[in-house]
């Protein structure tokens, strides 16, 4: 039950005020080294980060708010930049290399800004010869008659060319979001026609009745389904599968802990497998795509699937070691019958065709987001999904991702992201240390925050490490991005870490300490595996 003011807990109220404070903080304490646009972006970033952490409003609401604030404060059509024009004037030539310029143009460090392309200025050093009220006489061999000197170096358009608002709202139709939409519609139809349950039944069959293989089967099937459906929906479905198995166990049997833990672990890890497996993948893919790195569905699977399989096998081994089965055999009696109505068959065909086209993207070259429109169009055309089904899609997840992508665009565009990494000597850190640092931070943050939010907050930093070039030649943007996506999905130590964890915990079968123990072990092993893949495997498959 909610209590307190506005139905918010004291922590949420603290978050609400901190977030609003964060939004206005850059105006109370302007940072000298950051442009006006950067300050605006900083306010939005601080508010979003605090709101996402304390959740005074739902995380998807924060995402929508981010887009709203960006179109108001940062876009070319918003009130701040609507009529803005960079104030410039040409220097007046007095004699050889001596110029008269407005005194407001001269900055404290003895430079003036020369406007170049929109959103770009060049700093030019000048020697002051004489001051005379409104003007200063300077000597410089770099200025010329056709230069436009910025007469107000603190102006909001300095080093910033605002995007059209359509860039921010357009994130909702970003190709990766459309890819997810296709996935959501397939998943919705699968649930409607029980395809997920029937697939589980068929796929579990070969694993027999011995406990250790049942666990392996459960984990592989859970991971395979969560690679294409939401991790949460898969976990909820698999809980209905394991409850009858657990009911066959003696009450004190510890094997049930392992059984119940296997589901969220496999669901969380399984999401890594494909681009549409889980939202953090989308954040990373969208951010990379802005830098011309388009990672295909096939490429992603080649990159991620081997890691997923290794993690699953390790987790399986750990679960059996920690919670050994005492029973010889289980009766795995899943009832159900394949739906063979024309609509259900239609779904099977569309499902099969879409997944086939997705995983063979490298062979035929049709982008996966275009393929995603096949299920979108076909499922409604064939009346396999109706209006109610579409209304029930998890739209808020699409908004959550769109807001995350939009925040990244704003941070990059305003120069905020580059500014944030500027205070630290990254070059001295070395690429390997950087990978470790990002993995540790991502896993740690994502245990407490939404996985998507973690990816959203970290990805702009990765991007600016690339654009600023501070890391030198060794730095690989693609691999660092993949590290973020994978690490965000490997955090699962707490019930709040991921929705599948919350579902498993709610059954009352597992204890928090078991989940924490497994989660920490998975996190640490995951870290080592990420590092190994980043050094040895990913460089081989990403060139």
């Amino acid at each position: 039950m909610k209590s307190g003011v506005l139905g918010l807990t004291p922590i949420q109220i603290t978050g609400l005020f901190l977030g609003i404070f964060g939004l206005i903080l850059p105006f109370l304490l302007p940072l000298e080294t950051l442009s006006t646009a950067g300050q605006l972006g900083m306010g939005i970033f601080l508010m979003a980060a605090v709101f996402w952490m304390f959740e005074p409003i739902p995380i998807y609401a924060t995402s929508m708010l981010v887009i709203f604030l960006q179109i108001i404060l940062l876009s070319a059509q918003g009130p701040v930049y609507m009529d803005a024009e960079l104030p410039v004037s040409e220097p007046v030539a007095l004699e050889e290399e001596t110029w008269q310029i407005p005194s407001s143009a001269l900055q404290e460090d003895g430079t003036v800004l020369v406007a170049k392309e929109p959103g770009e200025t060049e700093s030019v050093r000048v020697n002051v010869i004489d001051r005379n009220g409104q003007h200063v006489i300077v000597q410089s061999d770099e200025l010329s008659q056709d230069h436009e000197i910025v007469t107000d170096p603190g102006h909001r358009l300095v080093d910033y060319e605002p995007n059209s608002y359509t860039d921010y709202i357009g994130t909702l139709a970003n190709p990766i979001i459309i890819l997810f939409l296709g996935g959501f519609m397939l998943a919705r139809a699968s649930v409607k026609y029980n395809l997920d349950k029937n697939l589980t039944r068929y796929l579990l069959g070969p694993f027999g009745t011995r406990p250790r293989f049942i666990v392996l089967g459960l984990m592989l099937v859970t991971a395979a389904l969560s690679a294409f459906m939401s991790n949460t929906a898969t976990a909820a479905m698999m809980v209905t599968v394991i409850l009858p198995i657990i009911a066959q166990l003696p009450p004190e049997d510890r094997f049930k802990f392992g059984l119940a833990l296997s589901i969220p672990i496999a669901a969380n890890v399984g999401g890594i497998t494909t681009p549409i497996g889980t939202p953090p993948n989308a954040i990373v893919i969208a951010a990379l795509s802005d830098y011309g790195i388009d990672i295909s569905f096939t490429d992603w699977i080649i990159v991620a699937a081997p890691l997923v399989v290794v993690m699953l096998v390790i987790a399986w081994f750990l679960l059996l070691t920690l919670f050994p089965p005492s029973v010889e055999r289980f009766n795995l009696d899943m009832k159900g019958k394949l739906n063979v109505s024309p609509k259900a068959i239609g779904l099977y065909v569309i499902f099969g065709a879409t997944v086939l086209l997705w995983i063979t993207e490298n062979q035929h070259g049709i982008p996966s987001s275009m393929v995603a429109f096949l299920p979108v169009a076909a499922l409604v055309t064939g009346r396999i999904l109706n209006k109610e089904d579409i209304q029930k899609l998890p739209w808020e997840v699409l908004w959550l991702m769109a807001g995350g992508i939009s925040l990244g665009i704003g941070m990059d565009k305003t120069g905020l992201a580059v500014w944030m990494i500027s205070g630290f000597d990254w070059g001295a850190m070395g690429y390997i240390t950087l990978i470790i640092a990002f993995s540790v931070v991502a896993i740690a943050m994502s245990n407490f925050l939404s996985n998507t939010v973690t990816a959203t907050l970290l990805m702009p930093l990765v991007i600016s490490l690339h654009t600023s070039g501070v890391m030198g030649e060794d730095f690989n943007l693609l691999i660092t991005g993949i590290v973020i996506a994978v690490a965000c999905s490997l955090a699962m130590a707490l019930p709040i870490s991921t929705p599948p964890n919350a579902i498993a915990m709610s059954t009352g079968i597992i204890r928090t300490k078991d989940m924490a123990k497994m989660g920490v072990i998975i996190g640490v092993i995951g870290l080592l595996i990420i590092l190994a893949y980043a050094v040895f495997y990913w460089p081989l498959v990403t060139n």
Partner: protein
Amino acid sequence: MERSDIYILCIEDEQEVLDAVVRDLEQLEEQFPIETANTAEEGRKIIEKLLNDGMKIGLILCDHILPGDNGVELLIELHKDERTHPARKVLLTGQAGLDDTVKALNEARLHHYIAKPWKKEELLRVSVDLLTDYVISNEEDLLPYMKSLDAGKISEAIRTRRNVSDS
């Protein structure tokens, strides 16, 4: 376990029987507070008070023969009241005739009929079942109820309803 705002109400004129019901449902009480009444009139007052406090009635277990209005009449009335309409209604009795029972079924959409004497397991199973139905049809967040109610049905509801999604 955290107390929910969903109440179980038992209406029964014999105190020993009432105590037995409460004892049998003890394991649910931690999450679903139990209120008791001896007459239909007292039951109404309790319901009124709970609703005014912003609470909900999830399950009503009612005897038929009561001083004043009888159980079937009360259940019909509660079925018609939109605030108590969603509550699951059980007639717990040894003395309701066929006519009254049919009336309760038709006009109060009675969810279950338990004949006295009952077995603890039966009462508990029926209560868990009905509360599960109640939360699935009326609550947004189902996770808090998985542990004490029917986890299988609730996870199935989460699967089909999709109001828990990746974050």
